Structures are given as structure tokens and as C-alpha cells.
């Protein structure tokens, strides 16, 4: 393993640096501008994201095809996988900022640090996506968590928001604490913090009998508590509905997409390089464990979503369910055939792209309706087809895609996942997943029903700005096209872990 030492690492660390710099700049600018002009701050942060994106591309192009660099003595690693996630997270942040600009619930006075925090959390997620050392894993996780707590509780004078923050932090602190305990155990077993080294050490010590499978099982379960809480997988999901409901909608959207994606990045990298060796996996039957977790996650998510009447909460549960679908790809990590493992990872990557567009799009509609109708309840969507046909149409597309109906991206995402799972001979899991998508039809259809089959009390139509529709189309078009274009499939394979 060749490690870059700190100074030469900086060149490859430029995106993160850019983010930090702009975070600082945002705070400063916020002090200068008048309150009402705080959009400027937002635009500055957008600029920052733009620069970061450029930086990512530059760094990525600077390292050759499927070559990778271990920065800071192997603390973090820059590879296609990391790059992909960085881009995804960055776009998510950008979308969140745009949402926030349109969202009326966010208080104008506080926007300065709000954007700074968003940049900070993005930074933390970048680290999550690329850290290869226990220390970095913990630090990045905590960075993201702490900032998210604050963002979730950002609506002062809103009890729901504060409650969300309180639950979030309590839950998160315990979960990350538990995870840290697990990490310490791993460290103890292998005597190193480097994932790759752990990957080499574990089988040896296991073979030598210095550690029992029970020890490893305990350690992994503790660590799962931390990761599972980030990707909201059963039984570590319970915070998410409450937090999603309480938090400001843009943040909910951000959490449901970005922090889930980051969580999956961490999950994949940790198990791939830390436990990539199949003997260890087999020894504790990690495959079955993950399979059961994923099955439970999607089932419970979908079932709990059925009775919901608050669209935000409903989407929260639905995102839990989608976490379950994604986890099916993770199950394949335990497969002995590296080809199938890669299929699983690329399936997750592809699904995340799809999920990014359809879920963010849905949340954007929720923002818009919350502004216009002032309600997050399904009732607020009644007669939307006549009050705002275009928005209703867009929502219909997002929902259809979330259900997984063909020609919408969601179907192809599921298709890729299920194909991979079935190739891994997990027919039962695929079947559970498919039945779940049938169940999910029901609650998504309730929104469709409200929008199209029912009529509102007052029928005056909503008016939206051109920008709104432009932003909406940014999500609609990919939701329609991604599945139909081969390029995305090949890309998703390109960015898997080596």
C-alpha cells in the first residue's frame, strides 16, 4: 500500500478544502449583508458548491482510470467510488439550498449559518464517502451527525423541530457511541485502524483463535447500530419518521437522500474493505443477517407508511423502505463471487442516482404544496390536478417512479437490484422486495387519488414561478430518462469499489 503524505495529499483534497473555505466565507458574508438580502449568501454557497464540483472533476481527472490514491497516510482514499458519491452528495446539497430558497418555513434571519452548516455537513459526508480508517470514519460520522442535529432543529419557536432535534441527537449519540465501542473492539482485535489492514488481519486472528466469532459478531453488530442509524435500517430506523416530520422540509429531503447515500457509501466501503474477506463473513453469516435486516426494513417501512396521512411522514417511511431495497444490494457483499459483489455495489449506485431524482423531486413538490396550501397532509393535495396540473403531473411521475412502474427510472433501479439479488440466488429476498413494491403501490396511490380523483373545497389554482418549473423539470426529466439510456448502467458499473 502506497500512502501519500500530508502535503502531497492536499492537491487531491481540494474539493473538501474548497467547501471549508466557502463555509467560512458564507459566515463572513452573512455578517456583511442586510437580512433581506440573505439570498446572496445562498448564491455564494451555491458558487462554493460549483467550485467544489469543478475541483472534484479536476482531481478525478488527475488520477487515471480506476487508479486510486490513499491520502494522509491512508486516512482517506480517493477513488471512483468516492468521486461518484461526492458528486451525488454535492448535487443533493445544491438541491437542498434551492429548496430552502423557495421554502417559506425557514426563518430568513438565520439563513447565513444555515448555509454554512449545509456546506459543513457536505464536507463531513465527503469524508464519510472516502474515509478508510476507523478514526476518520468516526470523525466524519460525528461531523455529519452534529451538523444534521442542528439543521433538524433549525426552526426555533417550532416545537416539532426542536423535538426532532432532541430525538435525533439522543438517538444519534447513543448509536454512534455504540458504534464507537464496536470500532474499539475491532481495533483491539486487529491492532490497526486501517480498513485494508483490518481486512487482512481479521481472518488471521480468527484462524489463530485469538478472537472468537462471537467477538466479531458483537463488534459488527455494534458498528451496524451506527451505520444502520445513518441509513435508517431496522431496528435502528425509529428516529427517522419523527425527525423527518419535525425537520424543515428541505432538510428532510436532504437527510432522506444525502445522509442515506453517505451512510451507504460508508457501509459499502467498511464491509467491502474491512470485511471483504468471505471467511469472516461466512463465519458470522453476515449475508443472512443483512438479508433479514433488509427484508425487515422494507417491509416495516412500507407497512408503517400505509396509514400515514402526513405526506412528509409518509415519505419518511417510504424512504426507510427504499433503504431496505438498497440494502438488498449490500447483502451481496457477503457473496463469494466478486463479480456478483460488484453487481450489487453498482446496483446500489444506480439505484441511488434514481432515488436521488425521484425522491428529491417528490420532496420538492411537498415544499411547494406546503407553501401554497399550507399543509403537509394528504388532504392538501386534493384536486391538485386541476389547481396545478403541471405540478400534479410531476408528482404523479415521481410517485409512479417510486412505485416502480416501467419507463420510469424507479422501475429500472429496482430491476437492476432484483436482477443482482436473484443472480445471488436470493430468490426469497427478491420476492419479498417485489411484494413490498406491490404494497407500496397502495399508499403512493393514495396521494395520486387525492390529486386526481378527489376535488378540493376551494378550486382557485396555484401559481408558480418559471424557476419553480425549471427546477421541477430538472428532477422530472431524469426520472423519465435515466432508465432508458444505457450510459447510466455502464457508469454505475464504472464507479464500483475495487
Amino acid at each position, binding site marked *: 500500500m502506497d500512502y501519500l503524505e500530508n502535503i502531497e495529499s492536499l492537491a487531491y483534497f481540494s474539493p473538501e478544502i474548497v467547501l471549508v473555505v466557502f463555509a467560512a466565507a458564507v459566515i463572513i458574508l452573512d455578517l456583511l449583508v442586510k437580512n433581506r438580502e440573505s439570498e446572496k449568501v445562498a448564491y455564494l454557497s451555491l458558487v462554493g458548491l460549483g467550485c467544489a464540483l469543478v475541483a472534484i472533476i479536476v482531481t478525478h481527472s488527475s488520477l487515471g482510470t480506476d487508479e486510486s490514491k490513499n491520502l494522509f497516510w491512508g486516512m482517506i482514499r480517493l477513488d471512483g467510488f468516492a468521486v461518484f458519491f461526492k458528486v451525488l452528495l454535492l448535487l443533493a446539497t445544491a438541491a437542498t439550498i434551492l429548496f430552502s430558497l423557495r421554502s417559506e418555513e425557514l426563518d430568513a434571519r438565520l439563513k447565513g449559518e444555515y448555509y454554512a452548516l449545509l456546506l459543513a455537513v457536505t464536507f463531513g459526508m465527503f469524508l464519510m464517502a472516502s474515509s478508510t480508517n476507523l478514526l476518520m470514519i468516526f470523525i466524519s460520522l460525528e461531523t455529519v451527525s452534529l451538523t444534521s442535529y442542528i439543521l433538524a432543529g433549525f426552526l426555533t419557536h417550532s416545537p416539532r423541530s426542536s423535538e426532532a432535534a432532541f430525538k435525533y441527537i439522543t438517538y444519534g449519540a447513543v448509536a454512534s457511541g455504540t458504534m464507537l465501542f464496536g470500532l474499539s473492539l475491532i481495533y483491539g482485535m486487529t491492532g490497526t485502524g486501517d480498513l485494508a489492514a483490518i481486512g487482512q488481519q481479521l481472518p488471521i486472528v480468527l484462524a489463530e483463535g485469538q478472537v472468537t466469532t462471537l467477538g466479531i459478531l458483537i463488534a459488527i453488530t455494534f458498528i451496524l447500530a451506527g451505520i444502520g442509524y445513518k441509513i435508517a435500517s431496522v431496528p435502528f430506523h425509529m428516529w427517522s419518521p419523527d425527525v423527518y416530520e419535525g425537520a424543515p422540509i428541505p432538510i428532510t429531503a436532504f437527510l432522506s437522500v444525502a445522509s442515506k447515500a453517505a451512510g451507504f457509501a460508508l457501509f459499502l466501503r467498511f464491509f467491502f474493505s474491512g470485511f471483504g474477506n468471505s471467511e469472516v463473513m461466512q463465519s458470522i453469516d453476515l449475508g443472512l443477517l443483512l438479508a433479514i435486516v433488509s427484508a425487515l426494513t422494507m417491509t416495516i417501512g412500507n407497512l408503517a407508511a400505509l396509514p400515514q396521512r402526513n405526506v412528509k411522514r409518509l415519505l419518511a417511511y417510504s424512504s426507510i423502505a427504499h433503504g431496505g431495497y438498497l440494502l438488498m444490494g449490500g447483502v451481496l457483499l457477503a457473496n463469494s463471487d466478486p*463479480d456478483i459483489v460488484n453487481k450489487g455495489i453498482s446496483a446500489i449506485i444506480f439505484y441511488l442516482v434514481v432515488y436521488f431524482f425521484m425522491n428529491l423531486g417528490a420532496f420538492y413538490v411537498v415544499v411547494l404544496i406546503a407553501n401554497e396550501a399550507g399543509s403537509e397532509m394528504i388532504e392538501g393535495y386534493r384536486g391538485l*390536478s386541476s389547481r396545478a396540473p403541471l405540478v400534479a403531473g410531476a408528482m404523479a411521475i415521481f410517485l*409512479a417512479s417510486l412505485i416502480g*412502474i*416501467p*419507463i420510469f427510472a424507479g*422501475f429500472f433501479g429496482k*430491476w437492476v437490484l*432484483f*436482477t443482482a439479488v*436473484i*443472480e445471488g440466488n436470493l*430468490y426469497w429476498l*427478491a*420476492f419479498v422486495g*417485489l*411484494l413490498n*413494491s*406491490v404494497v407500496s*403501490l*397502495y399508499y403512493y*396511490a393514495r396521494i*395520486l*387519488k387525492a390529486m*386526481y*380523483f378527489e376535488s378540493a373545497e376551494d378550486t382557485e389554482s396555484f401559481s408558480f414561478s418559471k424557476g419553480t418549473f425549471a427546477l421541477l423539470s430538472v428532477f422530472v426529466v431524469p426520472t423519465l430518462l435515466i432508465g*432508458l439510456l*444505457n450510459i447510466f*448502467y*455502464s457508469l454505475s*458499473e464504472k464507479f464500483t469499489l475495487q
Partner: protein
Amino acid sequence: MLLSLMIFVPLLGMIVVLLLPRESEELIKRVTLLFTLIPLVLAVVLFISYDRSTAGTQYFVSVPWIETFNINYHIGIDGLSVTLILLTALLGPICVLASWRNIEKGIKAYMALFLLLETGMLGFFAALDLFLFFVFFELTLLPMYFLIGVWGGPRREYAAIKFFLYTLFGSVLMLVAMIAVYLNSGVPGERTFDIPTLITLAGTEGHALADPGFQIWVFLGFFIGFAVKVPIFPFHTWLPDAHVEAPTAISVILAGVLLKMGTYGLVRINMAMFPEGIDFFTNGVGFWGNSLALLGFINIVYGSFCALAQTDFKKLVAYSSIGHMGFVILGLAARNETGVTGAILQMFNHGVISAMLFLLVGVLYDRAHHREINGFGGLGNRMPIYTGITTLAFMASLGLPGLSGFVGEALSLLGAFAKFQVLTILSTIGIVVGAAYFLWTLQRVFLGQLNPKYEDLPEINGREILTLVPLGVLTIVLGIWPHFAIEMFSESVTKLTEIMGTLQASL
């Protein structure tokens, strides 16, 4: 090229319609009519120019689509599909005309969805790539859901979601089976969705696809998927609700085309691709050997008796079509040329006849605003032309010789008898009961004293007659000269029977 054009013209039409202003309804209707007429013309061209002498697919286009999974945009037609494509294309404009007046709200969205639906149906019948096939199959779901749910009757929401859930459930099983087929079609890299290729692979000795056990469960997966659409007995309950709630034109499409998608799938996939599977379920040995024929029998008798029990005109027709699809299943179960030909012919005929019936029910409903059979009476005096056409449709539907309904039924039964004597004889009960409920309805609605409520019920008008005449003509022509349709697919049927390795069974 011609084929692709035909498939995607309605889609283009949808875009055009969406661009039109919402207010100019007449324009929208005309445009939609135009964009449904073009496929009809093209379909007729295909029908004429189709080379009847070969069983092979014609007009096929194969363009790589998703190389990662080796999915191609592969379409083509053989005798079977071209027949159904013609049916679909024919029903398109008819339905547009049928919706001309009785769709009050959101005509724009309605027409747009309808065009989307038509693309889905046309594509489904032309698809030769399993994945494409599935995509088109599902593509019809969403428009249908909205068309029933938005423009339907009082319980439309229930009906729509029921339809959606049932079909989605079926297609989910289909999806698993499909992926299984794909994964077993070869080593990574040379896996394929190409239906003709898969058919040959499934036929080759020792190939993973040819393994009987595998074929049987995959067969089941696909079968349930299609059975929901047909609908075959335990999965049928969505049909009456959907029909009763759906607007006339949509009922027409539902009965005329969507049900055929189920049976078409059975022929195209289950019978052609899984000879072992179909053999297991129709070899006449033991319970499983008779199961398919048994389902057909149950459909016939159960559907007919349910129809007899109905007092809602539309529900009656809906159940009657459950009964008639039973004949299709029975004929397919026979697996011999007579039976399969009869089944396919019955598919087409039922498409035409049930379309007629639903249109007629719609005509009556638009005037009287109810469908209670006992609420009418003596209309024969008031609206003689309507009565005449209805009588024609009824007679065709109850299988009166000389009209198309008879030929399909007769051939199916003749074919099935060679293999399942008892079940076939029992199925003939359906013929009598069919006559019973149709004649009874005829009497309660048209004969006897004129119900004074309807003293001034207006006679069927020119537009409605226009929608009915082509179907009526088709009914008579196919009754007198069925070979006109049969010659289209007789070669394909022969090929199919060879694939299934069964020749004309004889006692």
C-alpha cells in the same frame, strides 16, 4: 420501420394533444381521432402486406437498447400479433368516437392518456424482446388506472386501485420469472431477452432453460401474471368492478384488447417458450395434467352463471366475457391445431363482439342514465335499429352460427374434445346458459310492453351507428368466411404446435 411508426404515432399524438390549449375541446378530439386513424391505416397496410405463407416474424426491427443487460428494441409481427394489432388499431378510433360526447371533464387529459394506452397495447403485441414485452405490458397500467379512476362511475376509486393492485401483483411474479429466464439463458455476457432466441434455447436439449422443473415454475410465474389479465377464475374479481365503473370506451378497450394481452402472453410466452411447462399442465394426466382445461371449464360455467345472476347490464356483459375467455383457455389447453386456432380466433372475435356489447350498453346508459336490466322493457318498439344491432351482437356473442362468435367457440370445443372429453361436454353447459342470459336480457330490455318512462327515448344516432357498423360487419364477415382471419395465423399455429410437440390428437 412501418411497425415502429405505427406504435409510436399515438405517443406523438399524446404530445401534440398535451400541447393543445385545454379549451379547444373539439380540436383535441379531432386530433386524437386523426392520431388513432393513422395506426389503423398502417395496421391495415400491415395486414394486407403480411406474407401469409410463412410462420416467421416479419417487419422486425432490432436495435440495441440497454447493452448492459443485452436488451434490444426488437419488434416484429407474426400472424397472431398482426391480427391483434389490427383489432387494437381498429378499436382505437372507435373508442375515440364513443367518448366524443360522454366525457364531460378533462377531455384533454383523457385523450392524452388514451393515446398513451394505445401505444402501450400496440407495442405489447409487437414486442419480441422479453424485457420490452414486459415494459409495454406495464405501460398500459397507469393510463388505465387514471382512465378508470378519474372518468369512472361512483365506485371508480375502488375499481381503479383494485385493477391496479391485481395486475401489479401478477406482473411482479412475472418479473421474477422473467429475470430467472434471463439469468439462465447463458453465461454472463451472452444472456439474452430475445424471445425467438429464448424459444430455441428452451427447445435445445440439456440447456438450463429446457429443464422441466425450471420450466414448470417459471411457467407458473408467467401464467399467474397473464391469468390476472385474462382473467382466469380465481383472479377475475377485479374485472366486473373495473367494467362497471369504467367509461364506455375504456370498457371497450378493457374487454377488447387488455384481456387479449393475457391470452396473447399465454400463447407467445407460456406455450411457445415452456413446452415442458405447458405439457405438465395440459397432458391430461392426473390433476395437474387437466388443470388448465379445468380452469377453462370453470371460467366458462362460472362466468355464464354469474352473468345469469346479474341485473346490471354492464356487469352481465362483463361476466359473459369471463365466460368467453374460458373458451380461449380451453382451446389453448387442447394444444392441437384446431383448439389453438379456435382459441386465437375466439380472442379476436371476443374482442370485436364484447367491444360491440359495451358500446351498446354505453348507448343505452347515455340515454337512460342507468343500467338496471329490469328497469327497461319494450324498447324494441321505441328504438328498432338499436334493437336490431343489439340482437346481432347478442346472437354473435351466444355463438350463433353464421356469426363470428360461433367459429371460435366451435373450433375450441372441437379441439378440446379430442383431449378432455368430459370437461368439454360439461363446458357446453355454457352454451345453453349463454343463450339463456342473453335472450332473457333481450326480453327484459326490448320485448314486452314499452316502459312508459321511456316513451321518448331517442333512437341511436349516426355517430354511434358509425362506431358499431365496422364491428358488426367484421362479425358477419368472420362468421361467413373465417378463413380470412385464420389464414393469417394458421402457419404460426402450426409452428407453435410443432414447438409444443403435439399434433392433432385423435382418439
